[in-house]
């Protein structure tokens, strides 16, 4: 193994070492870390043809593009040198991750195993002494790792948008928030109870708060999301704001349930001409459209200094009263039915509606401040005035 070059990546604040090593040296540590990167996709089975070509090419002595790895530990001093790299690597194998080259690593392992099975010692010796190049990013944190993975394109099997979002917010799913359970999709169940929320829906709402935008995360925005989260993590505020967002929204839900927990649009008073967005208060407000509208509304009002923050919202929620639960539900459903029949993209329009709704009820300067029944009608008028 020989470190041949080092450069500082000032974008992600990491030192990049370019290293030459044999396949044998690489496999000594690479196999241990294959399952470590929770961000990486699992082995891609449909790529057999491409990677079997690679196996053959390696045996013919082709040059592979450099593998890219990351070590999340920091170097002990600010002036690193090439000579210390090998010992640093040895001491930090448990912090090592493959950023780019996972599938190639599997291919090399397969090839080694095949040659072992065939007892082809000559070819095996040749393989293990084959020289690879690898880049190691040292001192990279989770967000930096993700940023690098998303901006590295060559050879990597990329992730779906859903995977990227889950990874971005992975740490938040394990933050304990009193009385609230965040249910992840991978658990194979949905949030049913009053204090349960689908993690993905909460993430959408929180993202709407961060971006001051109620629309779903677009592909083009994913790197911007990382920048926003980086800023938050620098200020050490990320997890606190997330907790605040979830806590306040849950308080809002609890307050609604004080007045309307048993309120339901029944078959008797059902209007056959419309299809219902939600017949109960929880069916309406525990959907991602409402959470995103809430997040965007609070973010915008904070920017305009119409509210101070999540704490001030708690006080407002405590003051809320609902006189007519059925009326509120009918207004919301009628509004959303109009939106359904008159929108180019229904999901986005529903989010906008809720954004206007929350701005109506939480803005002191507004006519319908804390008046949910009236605000549910006024929000539609606001939406129409902006979109028709």
């Amino acid at each position, binding site marked *: 193994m020989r470190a041949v070059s080092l450069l500082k990546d000032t974008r992600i604040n990491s030192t990049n070492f370019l290293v030459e090593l044999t396949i044998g040296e690489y496999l000594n540590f690479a196999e241990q870390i294959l399952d470590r990167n929770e961000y990486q996709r699992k082995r891609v089975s449909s790529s057999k043809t*491409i990677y079997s070509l690679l196996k053959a090419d390696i045996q013919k002595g082709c040059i592979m593009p450099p593998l890219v790895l990351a070590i999340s530990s920091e170097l002990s001093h600010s002036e690193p040198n090439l000579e210390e790299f090998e010992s640093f690597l040895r001491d930090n194998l448990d912090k090592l991750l493959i950023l780019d080259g996972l599938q190639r690593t599997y291919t090399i392992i397969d090839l080694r195993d095949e040659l072992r099975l065939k007892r082809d010692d000559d070819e095996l010796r040749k393989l293990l002494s084959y020289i690879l190049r690898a880049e190691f990013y040292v001192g990279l944190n989770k967000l930096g790792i993700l940023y690098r993975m998303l901006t590295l394109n060559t050879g990597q099997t*990329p992730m*779906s948008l859903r995977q*990227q979002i889950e990874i971005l917010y992975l740490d938040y799913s394990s933050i304990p928030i009193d009385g609230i359970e965040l249910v992840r999709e991978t658990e194979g169940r949905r949030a049913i109870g009053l204090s349960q929320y689908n993690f993905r829906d909460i993430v959408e709402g929180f993202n709407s708060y961060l971006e001051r935008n109620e629309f779903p995360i677009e592909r083009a925005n994913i790197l911007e999301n990382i920048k926003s989260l980086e800023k938050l993590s620098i200020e050490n505020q990320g997890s606190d704001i997330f907790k605040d967002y979830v806590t306040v929204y849950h308080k809002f839900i609890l307050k609604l349930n004080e007045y309307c927990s048993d309120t339901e649009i029944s078959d008797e008073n059902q209007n056959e001409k419309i299809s219902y967005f939600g017949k109960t208060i929880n069916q309406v407000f525990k959907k991602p459209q409402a959470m995103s509208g809430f997040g965007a509304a609070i973010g915008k009002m904070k920017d305009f200094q119409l509210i101070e923050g999540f704490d001030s919202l708690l006080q407002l929620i405590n003051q809320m009263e609902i006189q007519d639960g059925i009326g509120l539900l009918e207004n919301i459903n009628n509004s959303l039915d109009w939106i*359904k029949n008159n929108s180019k*993209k*229904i999901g986005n329009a529903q989010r906008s509606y809720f954004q206007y709704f929350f701005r109506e009820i939480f803005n002191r300067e507004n006519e319908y401040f804390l008046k949910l029944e009236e605000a549910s009608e006024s929000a539609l008028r606001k939406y129409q005035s902006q979109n028709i």
Partner: protein
Amino acid sequence: MPFQVEYMGSAYPLIRESFDREKRSYICSCQEIELNSIEIPYSLRIDETYNTEDFIVFPFVKKDLNENDIFQVFEKTKNIRIGWCFPIQAIDSMEHTYADDDHFLKYAFVTFKSLIENVPTNIYLRKPIIENDVSINISQFFTENTVAIVISKATVNDIESFSITDYLPSFFSHGYFPLSNRNPELLTFDGIKLKSKKLFIKPISNSINNREFIFSIFKDVIAYEANAILLFFYLYQIIELLIQVIFQNEQSKIIHELSICFNNPTKTKEILEKVDQNTSEKRRLNLLMTHYIDSSPDQRDIKSACNEFLKEFGLNEGQMLSEYLYRVRNFIFHQYSDFQAEKIIIFKKIAYHLAPFTCELLNSFNIQNIENASNEN
């Protein structure tokens, strides 16, 4: 031509592999950029009842399309449902009215697969930009106002020589135009809004010969024409075509009568007087509405719009098409210098109502049989 994606500034074709039920996605690949697994996900409930070979998917476009503009297509003469008409983005959404409708879902899935497996040629397609993602929604390959009209082959077997082009005027009147390679976002004509969830279509009359020209006027010109005056001009060209056919037909009748009466000078003279009358556009417009259509289209809206315009310019209003429409036509063709630009809003109403009215004429037009030559005129 398969779907294409854009990557680092260049376009690459997607090679379709197969539908993966577990991933609920159609799997494609793009070898040039080493992407072995690009997924086109299917959001709705999968219903594999139908086979793609049993359906034909026609891509159309419509201005100001809403996600919930989902209609069942009925063939009016047989009164049978022959398919569905819906925005392609409805395939990617669970929020519209039909997201749980069993009948719609069968068509939706067949459309999804058909669009990927048989990408139509010479149509306007988008090339979504891919960076680090492997998932592209099918609606990203089309503009927001692209619609799928999906027809069941089994249901149209009973209709002799069924061809979707025969029904184009019905689609035009509601603002639906076949997707071409022209950017659909340039569409200006929106048509009459459907009030129910059924789209009834009627075939164009067999008596119409210049179909290609007429369809071309609609889909290549009217669809993209924003100027109301020019819209009126183009639509009136179609009416001119019809009254030209009437002229030829009436002339044929006259010649036929002459051939019978050539030994009778008095009768011959009477018949020859009709030749002059036959050239009158106003008379032919009357004949159009009284003798040359099977069922009279509703004239209320076009009449009201024309009379509002005539009144605005101090002209006499009319009761019949040959009065109210002809007077508007004369004003535009001969008195355009008197037209005030601020009155264009009133004129737009005429163009708006004239289009579906013209489509109705195309569907109902019927050339009289010469033996039924009427001496009433």
